[in-house]
């Protein structure tokens, strides 16, 4: 917790894996300073390769989006809105204008869904759920079929292209499962200088997040809300966010759905077609032979 120093859950050793406690990330843009230390720490610890650099022109975000070689992604939103009670100066050519403006940073990550599309889709059993409730891709099992890529409602997981190392497999955030097994905190949370990323027990984080939203609303952040889609078929996420404004501005779907909900109607249609094809063919041969 903020102000707890080395007593914070981000710094303490833990035994969540051994105790089978559900853990999570709570990411709070109201204290994020956009330093991208989380991106760097993630790349360093997990040996995530450099996947090229382009000037995006999208504010200070030259990372782009989550993918096979980007497991943390700091978003830079420029919005013509007030940020809390912050006073902004004039920006336009016209000296009289006092345009409201805010710069919001949010570190995006795999959501580790309660009902995960990638996990359900994986035909090799490479993607599994861990003791702490996170979703893990076992790199040595994945054969790179690419079905998880189109099954993720958040567009997180992707297949790593050549010539990067370990190319061909699907990759995403591991929730630093290797670190967690040793009682360590995920690398991104460990380095976050403002505790914008908080790691801890999921139930603790949820209550902490609710308090934070109330506090921000009282401080003038009228559009602060939690992004934690528990009402949809993904049934909640282990890495949830506080956001200012609408989810769409962060590229987050309002109602993310796990694609398995579409299976029933699709298979019904497939079986009906299968039956109709057999009947039509047999009828053709019966009547026209």
């Amino acid at each position, binding site marked *: 917790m903020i102000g707890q120093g080395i007593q914070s859950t981000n710094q303490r050793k833990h035994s969540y894996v051994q105790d089978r406690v559900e853990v999570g990330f709570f990411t709070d843009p109201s204290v994020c300073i956009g330093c991208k230390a989380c991106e760097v720490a993630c790349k360093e610890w997990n040996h995530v390769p450099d996947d090229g650099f382009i000037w995006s022109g999208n504010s200070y975000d030259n990372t782009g989006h989550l993918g096979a070689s980007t497991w943390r992604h700091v978003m830079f939103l420029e919005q013509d809105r007030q940020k809390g009670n912050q006073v902004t100066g004039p920006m336009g050519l016209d000296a009289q204008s006092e345009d409201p403006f805010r710069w919001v940073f949010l570190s995006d990550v795999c959501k580790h869904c309660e009902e995960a599309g990638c996990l359900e889709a994986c035909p090799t059993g490479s993607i599994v759920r861990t003791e702490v409730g996170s979703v893990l891709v076992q790199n040595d099992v994945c*054969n790179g079929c690419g079905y998880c890529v189109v099954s993720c409602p958040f567009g997180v997981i992707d297949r790593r292209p050549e010539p990067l190392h370990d190319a061909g497999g699907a990759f995403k955030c591991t929730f630093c499962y290797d670190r967690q097994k040793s009682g360590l905190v995920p690398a991104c949370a460990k380095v976050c200088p403002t505790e914008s990323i908080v790691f801890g027990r999921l139930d603790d984080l949820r209550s902490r997040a609710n308090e934070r939203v109330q506090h921000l609303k009282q401080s003038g952040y009228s559009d602060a809300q939690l992004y934690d889609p528990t009402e949809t078929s993904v049934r909640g996420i282990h890495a949830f966010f506080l956001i200012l404004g609408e989810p769409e501005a962060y590229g987050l779907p309002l109602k993310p759905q796990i694609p398995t909900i579409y299976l029933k109607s699709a298979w019904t249609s497939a079986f009906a077609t299968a039956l109709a094809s057999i009947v039509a063919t047999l009828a053709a041969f019966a009547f026209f032979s």
Partner: protein
Amino acid sequence: MTTNSPSEKRLEELREQAWKDGVVPGKGVDVAGGPIPRKPGYYGQAVVKPPVWTWQVPLYFFFGGIAGMSAVIALAAVLFHHPDLARATMWVSTVAGAVLSPILLVMDLGRPHLFLNMLRVFKHRSAMSMGAWILSAFGACVVPGLIALELRVQQFFPGALDQLVGVVAGIFIFGSAIFGTLLATYTGVLIGATAIPAWFLHRTLLPIHFGTAGLGSAAGLLELLGHRIPALNFVGFYVAGVETALLIWLSVNKHGAADRAIHEHGTGWLIRVGEVLTGPLALVLRFFSFIPFAAISFLLGALISRVGWIAVGKVSGSDPESVFAAERY
């Protein structure tokens, strides 16, 4: 931006001022439309990930459809005593389903040498897992089915043993037909049960289209191979009729921005051309007894529309507005 726009002029003034005075007290330049980039979502970036699949996948859909439905025709040919047709269909099924399809599927994998991992688990909630098992089961039926049929036709064994070979062939051809129908239709489920808006919004249509296109392609291919019999002609009428109905359904059942990849741009044309070739055009050609042309039209349309549906997925998955619009359905 032209050099005589007001903002560029202001920029020049600022540069001159900075050069002369070393410091600029005034304000910067208001870029047209700035400073907030007005693009949907987060800088117009994709919300879901478009498919990574390459050319092998639409080809696999095409050959898998032919293989699977060819086995259904094989079953009918055996039941209604068309030995030549039965042999041809089983050869088509084996080549397309047990040779071409697995090769294409393995080629599409990011790590082809790990293809056997597909059979590590059986997950009924994953259409990809089901597909791997369906293709395996189909291969396990169609290869012995073909061998038994050939032995039976050549009368390789004498007397009672020949009878037994006939029964074995019948069982395996029946199995091929059952798994074949699933092989031809599951591909619709595969892409229908995903997070790609243009795909999941048409998850009911896709298996019907893929299965019917498979049956029509199989019948058309056999006609082109010289099996011009009235029964295959009837199948040709049936599939072209269904595809015409699907064309109408697709043009009526629009979802605005959510599935615009099906109706707009190059991908829209691929779908439309594919549907017209398999539907109305094949129907008309067959009606006027231009049977080889109808068969070619259908085969071409079936291939183009498979390519089209994968292309649609790439466009739709890259379009954040489609994802947001699809949440209303």
